[in-house]
């Protein structure tokens, strides 16, 4: 018997803030190629809405731009089960109640999905404007590859 655990991928950010668009862009590309066992959403990163969005989901992957001072395009992967999410990484969200805070609030309320993975891509520019910097654009392809692998593993591991 096969029981696929449906995965939910949420791309976060703002299309009009340079590299802040990366999460949504990756989500859009994934959506164009994903199968039925993956649901893909886009959100602006407002924390309370995020908690609602992943309600009932077992396996959730978030993709967002971050700004922690590292090299542009660096990809960070966080497993929410294993570690608290560093709030300093996600300050560049348009909303102070942001991704990291949503994860920690959900933890306090026992509302975390069974598995929650966050991909944070180091952005270079968050100024008003459309378009990614080259380093971040390059990272988009790599994140997409990692996502596909992760989703594939999830699909296999949930086959009983």
């Amino acid at each position, binding site marked *: 018997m096969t029981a696929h655990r449906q995965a939910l991928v949420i791309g976060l950010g703002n*299309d009009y803030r340079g590299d802040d668009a990366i999460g949504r862009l990756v989500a859009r590309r994934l959506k164009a190629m994903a199968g039925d066992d993956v649901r893909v959403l*886009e959100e602006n990163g*407002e924390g309370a809405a995020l908690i609602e969005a992943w309600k009932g989901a077992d396996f959730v992957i978030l993709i967002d731009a971050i700004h922690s001072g590292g090299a542009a395009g660096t990809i960070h992967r966080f497993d929410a089960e294993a570690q608290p999410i560093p709030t300093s990484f996600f300050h560049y969200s348009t909303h102070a109640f942001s991704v990291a805070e949503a994860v920690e609030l959900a933890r*306090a309320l026992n509302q975390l999905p069974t598995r929650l993975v966050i991909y944070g891509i180091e952005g270079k520019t*968050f100024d*008003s404007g459309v378009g990614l910097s080259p380093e971040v654009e390059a990272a988009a392809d790599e994140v997409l590859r990692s996502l596909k692998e992760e989703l594939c593993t999830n699909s296999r591991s949930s086959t009983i």
Partner: protein
Amino acid sequence: MSKTRTIKVDYLARVEGEGAMWVKIKDGEVADVKLKIFEPPRFFEAFLRGRNFTEAPDITARICGICPIAYQMSAIHAMEDACGVRVDGPLRALRRLIYCGEWIESHSLHIYLLHAPDFLGYESAIHMAKDFRDVVQRGLQLKKAGNEVVSLLGGREIHPINVRTGGFYRAPTKADLMPLAERLNWARDAALETVRWVAQFPFPDFEQDYEFAALSHPKEYPFNEGRIVSNKGLDIAVREYDEHFAEEQVPYSNALHSVLKIRGAYFVGPMARYNLNFDKLAPLAQEAARAAGLGPECNNPFKSIIIRAVEVLHACEEALQIIDAYEAPEQSAVDVRPRTAIGYGCTEAPRGILYHRYRIDEQGVILDAKIVPPTSQNQKTIENDLWKFVPKYLNLPVDQLAWQCEQAIRNYDPCISCATHFLKLKIERD
């Protein structure tokens, strides 16, 4: 020798966006207060030039993820004003309904997740949630009820797409709205509980003589329509806005400070609406306000948290009445034909009056745009509050003083993503 301290908070948490505030203290007195905004504003105004008049609602809605409806409403009313069109009946009611959703959503977020922790002594809602799990859940559900209104009428929650000049792309049937009514019945009770909950908080003794400015309508608590009035005698049509209000450059900030040309700083938002329109609140909301210890006037900005809760209650009640009386319109939108004109729109965003002005040509191409968000209008009043507030707490350790100042700033629920994107709030003390 004089002693100088500067209080600085590099990152102001729990405001929408990021901000910087400097408070300088010299010889035991406040020497300077500066609200700093770094990013060049006006990107969207430039972006709008050359676009079609029908695109303004959806483009400006992207300025803020928390109050997209406000931007859409101000934009469509300005464009309809330019084109000489008035939208009435069920379409007008639907616009009020979607605005109710946005108020419920935005205010609930601020009350429960951003402001309440200040009053209860928690660092954040995350810390508060551990002790107040059910309360935080109620806040999240209340916010969700607002989301559902916006998402049903707007087509989706974030950056709704169903609003257009002349009406909606698709108008809901009465049956479509019925599930919302069920949800809003619950929300109304939850809002009443919210008023009771926040009314018990400890409030600093801090009353000021403000000039409140808000829309005022003869029959309604204002959302989309009315004259701009104040408690100090201002009473003007929306199209007279530029004659009475000016935007000033300040050297330390990229955002413009909005002032009344004659009297200077003014105060917009829930406190202003409440003080100028108390008698238009739903009876249930008036009653709840009185039971919470508020009269028709309130000059303590810390009590804005109660007023937000009262407005959530009003919005639930108003939304339920709109749904009850609703009959679907024959057409989801009226025809809006462009003409060479200037259009003016001002509506009550959750944080206060949001002014839009557009000049369009006969093809409907936008030649010029001006947007004044509520937060830039409150900037000067926020600074003034800190000038008065800090001296009362000079003896506090730096962290605590900074926290008190942040709480005072959060009274305004400043939406920095509207005013601009980044605003670092700094309070520094040597």
